[in-house]
């Protein structure tokens, strides 16, 4: 370890120690602390990384042990789902005032667009009396367990950069994704499964492509492992046809025996590590197909999610996400593609397309929260749901022309997400937007704030969690981000 890294590590140890001495009054016993703080390197690999030793993580007592992130790729409209704006209805069809357009950059809106009222009805639900749109009947049942953040904002108004900003903290590719950061810092709790797994539905990968779950400059072992919907759930996990598990066992034993001989000859510890990796690969050949098999669930659970065996659906993926976190996977990332409702066709209209999408996710996402809760997993599992940006209160007028259907353009200034479990307050709404949902006017939450908050729940101080690359210390939150304390229990 070079001087600089050593300095970093010492400093961190110092602050962590000090933090516990001074500020932790939870009265946790030493044993519990050790078990919470003991990191396990993902896959137990022992490679030389050139940065902060993650052994000093977590920085403080975590509320959440794992994360399920439900990314609605394409960006759902907050105005049709969570952010109820009756005043916008009154302005429906009127020209957008210049004051909302001046100095603003849009992806497609040109000239003067018309205002567009909410296309769905809203009602109050739960003890909290939270407004939810008619499009999300199942979600309305869990409102008392979730916190809706209505004042999200971002810097990017195109899908790929906005998704990258959300998932990696930077709008340009090449940075590690949040799941990679987390597994780099905290490792996996299950040595037979990757610590960071990705499930995709909706027919396409997100716009940001595999960079959205890449490891960036972190070692490649921290990249998200994508579980495939057909064929091998993880690439090459199955033996070739005709190679039984017996034969695989015999051949692996031979490989490992030869490698032990090799170790005796060359005395290279990396050879020992390779033996361990091959043993783990052998275990994964069983554990991966097993955990990915929804037929192992009882029928009533499958029905609860609306999961059907063999489908590449969001419902199946939600159920799989629960199975994965149950097995100790640290970070499960779901993408559901197809929320980009511009109104250029029926499928991308608010009235039709958005309804279809809501139908695909509403039951499974509500089931996920309920199911985690009934298993006692919700307390230390953080669930986050949301898109990469919001939609304009104006109707899209691509090329300055009237579009065939109702649609909204990309919008950076205000949108809604929800979070549940993992130490997040239930039954609250956080942040407020103006009367038409254009700007956040109270308690604005930036993407970097969201990231800081997620890390915080995992016991990580986002300002101290750095990786030295190309001459500087990189953070998920760049030089920004603040933990949204009001969201926390």
């Amino acid at each position: 370890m070079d001087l600089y890294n050593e300095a970093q590590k010492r400093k961190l140890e110092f602050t962590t120690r000090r933090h516990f001495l001074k500020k932790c009054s939870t009265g946790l016993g030493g044993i519990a602390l050790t078990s919470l703080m003991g990191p396990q390197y993902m896959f137990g690999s022992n490679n030389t990384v050139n940065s902060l030793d993650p052994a000093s993580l977590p920085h403080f007592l975590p509320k959440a042990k794992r994360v399920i992130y439900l990314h609605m790729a394409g960006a759902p409209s907050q105005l049709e789902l969570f952010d109820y704006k009756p005043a916008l209805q009154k302005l429906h069809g009127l020209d957008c005032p210049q004051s909302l357009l001046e100095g603003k950059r849009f992806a497609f809106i040109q000239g003067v667009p018309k205002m567009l009222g909410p296309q769905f009805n809203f009602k109050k639900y739960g003890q909290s009396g939270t407004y939810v749109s008619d499009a999300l009947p199942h979600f309305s049942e869990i409102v008392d367990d979730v916190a809706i953040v209505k004042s999200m904002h971002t810097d990017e108004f195109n899908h790929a950069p906005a998704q990258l900003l959300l998932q990696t903290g930077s709008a340009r590719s090449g940075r590690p994704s949040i799941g990679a950061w987390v597994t780099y810092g905290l490792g996996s709790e299950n040595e037979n499964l990757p610590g960071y797994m990705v499930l995709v539905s909706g027919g396409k990968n997100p716009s940001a492509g595999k960079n959205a779950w890449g490891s960036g400059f972190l070692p490649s072992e921290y990249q998200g492992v994508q579980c495939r919907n057909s064929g091998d759930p993880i690439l090459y996990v199955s033996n070739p046809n005709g190679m039984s598990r017996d034969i695989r066992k015999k051949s692996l034993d031979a490989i490992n025996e030869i490698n032990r001989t090799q170790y005796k000859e060359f005395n290279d510890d990396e050879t020992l590590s390779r033996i361990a990796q091959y043993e783990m690969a052998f275990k994964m050949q069983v554990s991966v197909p097993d955990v990915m098999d929804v037929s192992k669930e009882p029928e009533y659970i499958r029905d609860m999610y609306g999961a059907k065996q063999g489908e590449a659906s969001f419902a199946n993926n939600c159920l799989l996400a629960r199975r994965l976190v149950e097995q100790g996977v640290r970070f499960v990332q779901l993408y559901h593609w197809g929320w980009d409702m511009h109104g250029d066709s029926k499928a991308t209209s608010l009235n039709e397309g958005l309804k279809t999408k809501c139908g695909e996710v509403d039951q499974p996402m509500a089931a996920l929260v309920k199911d985690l809760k009934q298993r006692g997993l919700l307390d230390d599992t953080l669930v986050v749901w949301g898109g990469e940006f919001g939609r304009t209160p104006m109707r899209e007028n691509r090329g300055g022309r009237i579009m065939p259907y109702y649609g909204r353009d990309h919008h950076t200034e205000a949108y809604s997400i929800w979070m549940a479990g993992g130490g997040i307050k239930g039954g609250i709404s956080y942040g407020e937007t103006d009367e038409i949902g254009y700007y956040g006017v109270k308690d604005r939450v930036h993407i970097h704030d969201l990231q800081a908050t997620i890390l915080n729940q995992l016991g990580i101080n986002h300002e101290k969690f750095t990786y030295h690359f190309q001459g500087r210390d990189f953070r998920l939150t760049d030089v920004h981000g603040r933990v949204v304390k009001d969201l926390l229990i």
Partner: protein
Amino acid sequence: MKTFFLKSIGFCYSLVFIFVTSCKDDKIDFNAQVRPILNKKCISCHGGVKQSGGFGLVFRENALAETINGKIGIVPGHPEKSEMIARIKHKDPEMRMPLEADPLSEDEIALLTKWIEQGAEWQEHWAYLEPQEPEVALDDLDWGVNEIDYFVFNKMEAHDLSPSDQAEAHDLVRRLYLDVTGVPPTTEQVKAFVENPSDKAYEDLVDTLLQSPKYGEHWASMWLDLARYADSKGYEADRPREIWKYRDWVIKAFNEDMPFNRFTIEQLAGDLLPNPTEEQYIATAFHRNTLNNGEGGTDNEEYRISSVIDRVNTTWEVWQSTTMSCVQCHSHPYDPIKHNEYYTSYAFFNNAADWDVPTEHPIYREFDSLSSAQLKDVKKWVAKVASNDEANKWEAFIRIQEPKIRPEDFDETTNTIHYNRSNQDYMEVYNKASIKLKDVSLSNVDRIYVNYRQYTKNKGTLLIKKDSINGTVVGKTILNKSNGFTNVPVAIKTDAKTADLYFQFTSSATDYLCFLDGFLLAEKLPVANDGTSPEIYDKIDALLNAKFKHSTPVMVEKPNDFSRLTQVFDRGNWLVLGDTVQTDIPKLFNVNNRQFKNRLDLAEWLVSEDNYLTGRVIANRFWAKLFGKGIVLTSEDFGTLGERPTHPELLDWLALRFSKDWNWSMKTLIRNIVLSETYKQSSVITEEAKQIDPHNQWLARSSRVRLSAEQIRDQALAVSGLLSDKMYGPSVMPYQPEGVWTVVYSNDTWQTSPDEDAYRRGLYTYLRRSSPYPSFISFDASERESCLSRRINTNTPIQALVTLNDPVYFEAAMHLAQQIEALDGDNKTKVEAAYTKVIGKNISPDKTTILVKLLEDTKAYYQAHKEEAFQLVKTDNLELASLTIMMNVLMNMDEFIVKS
């Protein structure tokens, strides 16, 4: 300095510091003694950006200036007046520095005190100082054969280590093949070397391998990581990009041993050389490997800027291992480089004509045979009436279609809309529209090509007028419905040297609309004795609209009249512009006050004697590739926060030889390194060496390094006899499982290449940035999104699954099994033959036992499960099935995946 020094001596006597009086004459070495303390304890709060309390330690003038509380951090010669000393010694933990951290040790405090007494002299960081010719006493060399060994041996001795024996011949020859050509030797090649009695056997082999075309393919991989070469544009739809000719250029440059200075200049500024050749244009594609965002609704200026920024960062990283990206938003936190100096570098790249459009204009076109013949006629004619140079210039004009004046360059427009989003980035021109171009140099222009597209049959009239909208008409044409974007010529008749030009569009159709991408300014054709040949114009007109077979994005400068202004981005925000700056390099590096006007000047400086870094940085890259890690471990960062060289004298020696005596020959550099005894050592790790030097910094053995992603696949194909020797051409798609490519808004599919193209070397594999070839990514290959100096090798179960189960590896195992099956002999004979085929040497008895047992066990198993054997090898040959299993084992051995 001398006065400081004398003063400080005076102080030694006047002050009662016991530790100082004992060593008063020793001059403190800033770089060796002081800088490490500052970097470790102080600089994270008192750096170039964060200067807590107004005190920063990157620039001396900051450290000596008054701080926020009115005190002075460092008063040269006066530790007792220096606030820094007071604070590091403070009793109150709230005041004592470093805050919330362990205090400095007594020794460290004493050292800093003495350094201030001696005048607090700064010394430039080692990497910014001129490389020094180190002294070498080759005569009394205790070990080794050349200077490299001399330096390495000295360091070993200093660390109580002694060199390892030379590697066993079979291991050495495999290592050498893998390092020089990337693929292992055949059994015959191993035998030829091991049995060659000549003293020069090794040296001869080195020379032979450096002549192998495989050498260029192997080393190109390293460069392509730096160049972030890929076959797609990146971002959302990640559409294909045709740029493989650049990859081929790199391979050829390595194989021809193009000197590194030329290699540099052609890639960074080939287009600015006098009369550039096709190859020199293709070389400039180095900087066209930047991403291009084709997502609908993206602001093209934003992503053009993003590419320019990437070019700045990449150039500084590749040639200078300097983290210029740190200076994008503020002055460098650790190195003495200022914020605005980022933008003087930016200015070098800001004037390139490319723009974030899907066409990737400017591109270098390769025509079909018919158009090529026409182009040949044009060139022949121009060469005859003028000169070859003139002919080349016309060729470049026709192939690249520059200089082009685009909507961003228009001065004033009416009745037009320009919306610079993604693929709609052209000007919508309506009836009665006008466009003004300011101060156009016309002295050598006689045609303007209008690049436009028109969907309707309405006729539009374009008048080009001089000086004002009512001025003299200097050109005229009719715009008709077009077949896509088309170039129509307008002859320009004027004597004016420069003029404002007005383009006026009128039509009898009130709803007239065309889309304008720009104006191409064509120079005057040379005049033949019999007057200008009209067919030549016709041919040029046709060629400017001709279809092309292949194209490569290239760098071209915008014409002077339309060059872009470079302004500092306030805090890195491109929407908030600050001072205007000119092309220059940071003061820190400009040791001879050179003047810089364009990329060519920058490129020439990089490989000149005025540059202290390039030789070191590049020599270090080659060293790192051969030894698994560089003399400077952080090959991407030679700055203050990078690692210091383990062997500074060796690094300087290599840098000086490489840049001077060896005339930048990369082959000579590699040759000298691999001829050293240092390189040839065994990689067996003794228990003692493991204790003293676990990471092998001092090179008392050869490092065992896992093969690269490409090498692992190439090797499996090579030993099984499947590897194709075919070089160059469009990238290929070997088998990959269904469903890996599911990219949004894209119907591109992975089409498995036929025949030998499925078995080409890894560097020819199609690289789609959003979805790279899966097994390469598992083995730590770059996704080529940005410049990568160093791949970090990992060791994961996902990798094991690849080499165990990826059909490519399994096919290789079966192919090899068929060859072994054909041999006569018992299991033992076959095991021995198989092992030798894979590793190139004889198998040890214990490994034989393991493998013979495996063979027997699997045979017995398949005897009882014949249907499984059939599934495995598609025949009822049980022996082939069990041999395939054994081959799969051999190709997963640690010794196969690692270079020993």
